[in-house]
Structures are given as C-alpha cells and as structure tokens.
C-alpha cells in the first residue's frame, strides 16, 4: 500500500509553517508591544497558487510574450483546471509542444496572440489544439 507522501510541491515545500510565530524570547523583562500584532510571514505559495493540486510549473523559452511581462527563463504557474476566457494567458498544446499565448477573440474568431510586435498571432486551429492550462502567476528572480 502506498501512502500519500510529500512531493515537495508548491503547497508542501517551504511554507509559512516553517516560520513559527515566536513572541518575545526573553523570559524576564518587558514583553514586546508587538507580540499581539504578530502575523504569519507572507507565504508565496499560498499567495500565488490557489489550487496546488492542479497547478504545474513550466519554464518559459522565448520572447514572444515579453509585452505581458513574461520573459525567457521565467517560471510559470499554470492551473490546469482553470477555465480560459477572452484575454487569459494560456498554455496550449500546439503541434506537440506546450506554447504560451494570450487567448483572445479577434475579428475572424478566436486567436492565440503573442505579446511582442515581432511575433504573429495565429488563429485557433480546429484540430490538434487544446488549452493545457491557464497561467496564474509568473515568477522571476532578479538577483
């Protein structure tokens, strides 16, 4: 029998629980006036990922979405269960690859748009196309 085991995913890796709420450590002396106001530190996982079980992380390759703030090498949090709508940034399975685009309704029907003037939009093909998930967050380290 296999037990559910932690897999080091977004919801289970280092989270706010790793930072216990400690008040003033000094036993004697004055209690800190901030003790009553201590709150948990910000948990980025909880902040960025609403549905951890459905969220997968992907690595961006290319510049076609730079106008949407998605750069080469960025980490995308992609929710497979979220519904795509007009304007959603989506990951689609296209020609056997996962591709990130903006889904938008154009004059001639649904389009997959790039967010970079050097790249073309493509009409949503009738076949061989599926929305893999909706991009819910972009993660980039700057140092």
């Amino acid at each position, binding site marked *: *029998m*296999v*037990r*559910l*085991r*932690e*897999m*080091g*995913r977004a919801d289970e890796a280092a989270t706010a629980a790793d930072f216990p709420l400690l008040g003033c450590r000094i036993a004697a002396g004055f209690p800190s006036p901030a003790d009553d106001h201590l709150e948990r530190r910000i948990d980025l996982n909880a902040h960025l990922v609403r*549905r951890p*079980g*459905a969220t*997968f*992380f*992907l*690595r*961006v*390759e*290319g*510049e*076609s*979405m730079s106008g949407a703030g*998605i750069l*080469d090498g960025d*980490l*995308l949090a*992609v929710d*497979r*269960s979220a519904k795509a709508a007009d304007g959603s940034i989506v*990951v689609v*399975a*296209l020609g*056997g*690859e*996962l*591709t*990130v685009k903006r889904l938008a309704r154009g004059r001639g029907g649904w389009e997959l748009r*790039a967010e970079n*003037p*050097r*790249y*073309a939009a*493509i009409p949503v093909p009738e076949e061989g196309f*599926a929305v*893999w998930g909706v991009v819910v967050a972009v993660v980039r380290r700057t140092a």
Partner: protein
Amino acid sequence: MLRALADCNNFYASCERALNPALEGVPVIVLSNNDGCVVARSSEAKALGIPMGAPFFQVRRLCETHGVHVASSNFAVYGDFSARVMEVLAEQARDIEVYSIDEAFLGFPDMPDAEAEALGRRIREEVRARTGIGVSIGLAPTLLLCKLANELAKGDRASGGVRVIPSDPAARLALTRPLAVDRLWGVGPGLASRLRSHGIVTVADLAEAEPARLRSFAGVVGERLALEARGVPCRDLVEEAAPRRSILSSRSFGHPVTDRAELEEALAYHAAQAARKLREDGLVASELVGFARTNKHRPDEPQRRAEAAVRLDPPTQDARRLAAAAAQALAGFWEPGFRWKKAGVFLLGLSPADRSQPMLPGLGAGESEARRRLMTAMDALNAKLGRDVVRLASTGLERAWKGKSERLTELSTTDAERLPVAKADGPRLPRTRIRFHE
C-alpha cells in the same frame, strides 16, 4: 454503502503524456529502471501487441517499426501525479484507501444508487481537469464488485470510463448474468474450474449460490466471494496503511558487475536506502538479507542467484550497521566468475522502533543513543539539502554500477531545474522590407 474503485488508465504512460503533448495519439511504453522491461503501455501500444513485462530487447524492433515512444521510468513524476490524483479523490469521498500508486478504493456513505453514475462522472472529470490523467471508476456495494465494475468500465468505450453495479438484486443479477465467474478478482483458473464443476459459471450464479454451500467445496475464500458477489461486504476500506512487514531496496545495474568492491558498494547503497525507509516509518529490522543475481536473459553466461541472511541484534535502523551487515552477507555468498546483473537488500522482522526492548545491562545494549542521534541529524540534513547529500562513504561516490536510464525524460514536476518548457518563440513576423520607389 456505495463504494468505488478509481483506477488510473495506463498510469505511467498517461503521466508521460500529460507533460508532453507530442505523445498524444502516439503509442507510448515505459521501461523499468535501467530500461529492462516494459512496465506500462498506452492503449495504442497495447493494440500493437506489446506485452506487459516484456524485456525491451524483445520488442525493440516492433517499437522502431511503429514509431513507439519509449520512455525510461520517471518515478518522481509518477509519484507527484499520484499524490495529485489521490488529493482529488480524497476530496470527493468520505473514505479512501490508497491501494497502489494508481488506484484507490472510495467510500460514500448516504449516497443513493441513483446518483452513483453522475458521481463517478464528476470525479472522473475533476481528476482529468486538474491533472490531465484519465481514470476509470467502478461503483458498487462491495469492493469485489467495484473491481469488476472497474474492469467493465475499462473494457467498454461506450461506458465513458464509469460503470455501476447496482445494489438492487434484480438489476445486479441481470448485469452479471453474462459475466464468467473468472472475471472476478481472486478467481484463478483452479478455483474457476472447481466452481464450474458445481454449476457456478457466471458471476450471477455465484451471487445466487448459498454461501454455506460454497464453503463446503471452496472454503472460506469461496464463501466470502459469494457474499461479496451478492452485495454483502466482507472487507471494507482500510484507511490506515497496514504496517510494513518487509522492506526491499534493489535495482538492476547499468552494466554487469564482476568486481567484489563494486558489488559491496551497491549492497551498502541499498542497505542505506532501506534504512532510510525504516526510519521514515519509525521501524527497526532484526534481519537483513543481501542478494545478487546474474542476467537470466543471457543463458550463455553462468547463472547464479545468491543470498545470505544476517541477524541484527539488537534490531536497528542505523544505516551504518545495516551497511556493515550487507557487507557481511556478501562475504557469505561471494564467489568470483559471475557477471552480476542485479543486487539488493531485504529487511525482515520489522517492529516499531519505540517498542523494541532494550536488552538487560551486560547482555548487549539496545541501539545506542549516539547512533540514533547521528541518523536523526543525517535525515534532517538530507531533508533540507536534498536526498542523499549526506551519505555513507561505503555507498560509493562514483556509483559506476548504477548506470543510467537512456531515455529518461529528465522532466520533473518537482525540481525547478528540470521543468517542462512553455514555448514563447513563434511564429515570427517577417522583417519589414523597405522598398525604394523608382
């Protein structure tokens, strides 16, 4: 109570596909560690007649001819997908027994039969939406019938992956009348022929038979089968995992091993792996069996399966003691002149660490406190820094024997360095050309 068996379809192959859309519609097989045997097949690969468990070299030709995608197993990814699927199932059901990496029994008290089918479809949709993995769901009043319903769901495309065997006797008998009794879980050829000789040919026959009569010629097993077949549960979900009775760590080598030092290193490695599992489960072992075997697919080479057991007194979970015991086991069976293909370590006589009796003073001490603290420190460091960062030197630094899976997807859903890629590089617009009017 309504129960269900949810079973992922072609699980490992489905995981490969979930991360790689190029595999949609393409036959996919997954190979065991070190690319030995076929351990999973997509439906297209099954249709090509690739048998489960076949050594890869026997089907390589077939795979090349039909463009089969061959993947090395990637258990970190399958484990993550399994946990995600089980999460969805645990949300949907009140009771859950995770039965294996890709199947779980579910319990739904107060759920009327009339809603069973819709419930199954909802669960299936939810799992697919969140993970991309397809599951088949069989719903029924007993686990035996759940398993049968699941087989029916899998075997029939029109079912849409969900089948219900109702608790209403008339409907249930009508549905199971055409089904041969050997389609039931646990009815092998021997039992099936004994049942047939007593006039029990179909599942419905079994359900209608008097359980006491069954016991007279098919024992308690037969009686329980008859009861479960008629909708009376004899076994219910076990939510708590049963305590382990043994721990195995073993693996095929990347290349044949002939050197004793190399074999000793591999055994020490497996002893340390098994020790880690012991500590994770809070257990100690009182016996270690070290073993090695040659390649059975090479009849031209001398064949041997060798093993030796070592008592562990006092019982232990200490990687260093277990590695030493593994070396002792090797000394017990080592013989030069063989090309070893696989080696490993079995731990037996497991008991909870907190209940293991310290020996009387002077008659050998229990596991020393210092040893225990060292292991705790090692586990804590590895939990923080990554698996195997702190390890026994005897388990090897180079680990040449380990070999490499050639077709490893290298993808991970849990390691930020090896994530799948989202392409953002096309299609480019043509450069604007400047025209000169003359």
